[in-house]
């Protein structure tokens, strides 16, 4: 186990190193002039050159890369061209919003998707199965920009239940502790603030949960249908166990391994920032930040986002692999 985790950490370093080379090369061979973009439309050639020197864009690319890496090992991701703040500070501002949203969306997907999938599998071919199939199809197929706006129209404009944008109604007087506003409000014991943060979280989280929920429901169903046909289920039933125990203790646990794999990848994807959802709901997360970074050729920010996403993916997958051990004691690393 320890050896497995250690080897995975070595793997992680390798992946990040590879990604850094790839991302750095790509962001530097794109035609265009980041210095010009950063200097502003009214800047003259002299000012553009000053910016170029400041960001070392006048140096050969290998030198730039080595300089970047030498600062990266000290935890310095450079200064964003677009926001003019250290990229590390920017990621620290935007990433918690993404984690909070991704967590809420995953939560909705798990809490609704697993019971729905199991129920559909145990009632294979019945009406509940058909309804869940139809709902999953819609969930997987409906574009997020459409369903997000629809949710806003119904639950914000017509019913007035939830706010449409942002993370809080009024940010004055809020100072972040963790950056997760729901958690911060609880830590401060501010119930009204907690409710406000939760209120703001609902619509984007539901929108973001749409696809993973559909996927999870279908995955759990098909995996369960297969396991329910296996000998272990017949044996369990033959022993006279209650149906609930057979389904949840015996079948469900065995059905979870493929589900965990797919869900892990989904979590990684959610943590990478959901661009469309974040834009519709003006949710200040990583996707929001990444889009702005790419369109303004802000290569330090692009690099920072790419490395962070790579890191998150590898770590999430490590957790998925570890979860196999808990799900199936026969698996050994």
């Amino acid at each position, binding site marked *: 186990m320890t050896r497995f985790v250690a080897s995975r950490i070595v793997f992680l370093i390798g992946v990040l190193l590879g990604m850094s080379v790839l991302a750095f090369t790509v962001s530097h061979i794109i035609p*265009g*002039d980041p210095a010009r973009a950063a200097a*502003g439309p009214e800047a003259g*050639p002299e000012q553009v050159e000053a910016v170029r020197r400041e960001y070392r864009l006048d140096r050969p690319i290998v030198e730039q890369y080595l300089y970047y890496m030498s600062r990266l090992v000290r935890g310095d991701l450079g200064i964003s061209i677009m926001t003019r703040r250290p990229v590390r500070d920017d990621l620290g501002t*935007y990433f918690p919003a993404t984690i909070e949203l991704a967590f809420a969306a995953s939560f909705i997907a798990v809490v609704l998707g697993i019971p729905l999938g199991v129920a559909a599998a145990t009632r294979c071919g019945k009406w509940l199965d058909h309804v869940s199939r139809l709902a999953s199809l819609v969930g997987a197929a409906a574009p997020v920009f459409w369903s997000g706006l629809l949710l806003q129209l119904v639950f914000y*404009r017509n019913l007035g239940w939830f706010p449409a944008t942002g993370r809080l109604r009024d*940010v004055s007087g809020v100072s972040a502790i963790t950056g997760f506003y729901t958690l911060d409000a609880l830590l401060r014991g501010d119930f009204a603030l907690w409710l406000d943060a939760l209120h703001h979280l609902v619509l984007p989280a539901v929108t973001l949960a749409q696809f993973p929920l559909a996927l999870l429901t279908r995955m759990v169903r098909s995996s369960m249908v297969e396991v329910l046909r296996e000998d272990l289920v017949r044996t369990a039933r033959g022993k006279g166990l209650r149906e609930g125990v057979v389904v949840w203790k015996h079948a469900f646990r065995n059905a979870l391994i493929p589900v965990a794999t797919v869900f892990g990848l989904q979590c990684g994807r959610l943590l990478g920032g959901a661009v469309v959802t974040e834009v*519709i709901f003006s949710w200040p997360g990583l996707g929001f930040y990444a889009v702005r970074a790419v369109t303004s*050729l802000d290569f330090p920010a692009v690099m920072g986002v790419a490395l962070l996403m790579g890191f998150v993916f590898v770590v999430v997958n490590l957790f998925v692999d570890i979860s196999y051990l808990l799900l199936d004691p026969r698996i050994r690393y």
Partner: protein
Amino acid sequence: MQRTLSALVGVLFAIALLIVIAPMASPQSPGTINVGLYAGEPASVDPGVILSTTVSRTIFKGVYESLVDLPGTERVPKPLLATSWTISKDGRVYDFSLRRNVRFVDGTIFDGSAVKANFDRIFALNREPASSLRAIDRVEVITPERLRIVLKAPFADFLSILVWINFVSPKAIAEHEKNGDHAQAWLRDHAVGTGPYTLDRWIPGQQLVLTRNDNYWGGWSGNHLRRIILRPIGETGTQRLMLEKGDLDIAQAVTVEDAATLARNPQIAVRRDEGFSQFQIFMNTQKGPTKDRRVREAIAYAYDYDGHIRGAMRGTVNPAQGPFAPEMAGGLPGMKPVVRDLGRARELLRQAGYEKGGFALRYKYISGRNEDKKAGEILQASLAEIGVKVDISEGPWPTLLGQLQDLATAHELFPYVTVPFYNSPDALLFAHYHSSQMGKQGRNLTYYNNSTVDQLIDNARSESTLDKRLDMYREAARLISNDHVAIYISRNINLQAFRNRVKGFQYNPIKPYIFYFYEMYVD
């Protein structure tokens, strides 16, 4: 297992119920205004670093002040931190009398040395504001209330540029300087000015909050806003919903479709103001078939203007006439928008040696820009009728600009929205048509080179009589139009929607999306 599950479902249901039942707090509080920003948030609110970004300018107008100002549709700068000024006969020496009893929000006195410290800082930082002040030779403090600016050469529109130069407390600059950065890092998200508001909070990606500066020299009698909440909301549909709901008082991002719906709402007023910015397709004058003036003229005659203005843009733009909006020069007599004439276009191509057309041109636009995209399609269809092929591609602005700044990689055709930076044709003529601004030097990306036009632009800069200056600009406009450097297509109409409770907004064609919050109030 099933029992815990039902308990969990119960708890979740209870939380869900609580969230739904809890009332959403009312967004309207007295004297507070909520503004939906379309263009995102500023990279910095440091007036020594940023000059032309609309969002930054909006904040500058709240928290900082300049020596002179151009409110509303005024053409001649008005006093602000300078109460009066004289200009020497040779047009090089400007003597300003500064307003007395003005303090920065941190208590520092505003005087000549504070102004000089800011100019010194701008030149030391050498960013966008420094480029706009290239005309300055030196700044001298004569007395605390008198300041002299000496220019290298006469520049008739100099005061119009000073409208955008704002002053930061020299004490704040000194206190927050780190490693010789002139407090750049700190002033990025802090503001210490003499303006009516202070930057209270800025949470990246969420809100910028401006609150009233109680000690503002202009005083607080009469109707004014107390608090301004600026919210970057990139999705137009969302802005519309929030405006209808009353969570926003002003929506900057109004699409044509939304404007029609919003106009039917009795609580909302949609403003349609013609701005000075205009849309054109520039043509390279130094390479490929468009090097030939007759080919450029043929393209200008082939373009389907009606299809653009009435069809694609559904009448939400007005026709453009020349290199700048006619009002900027007090009219452009004798110049009319080009009218499509395919026969003339074919004849011109024949004269240029392309009887059947038979060549291809590249058109590249900025990704995501609707009018650019539609214009490309119209251009493609229009030029197909005279046998010219158009290859359309798109890319992010910095990439596109990088390619255009090098004659070797420049595309023959590219759409461009010109936005004059100050209220004078000089703002556009110098940047886009003066030969000293070619390629990397500026924004003359068509590589247009006409010595008579250069001469007119240069002479106008040193001409102190406005009427004579305007004559020169009209002549330059005529020459440029005859050279067909661009297909002048449309002037944009700025759409902004306001809830009725918002009062006191003054439209300014030079800065259509900038608000003078101090002049505004809510019922």
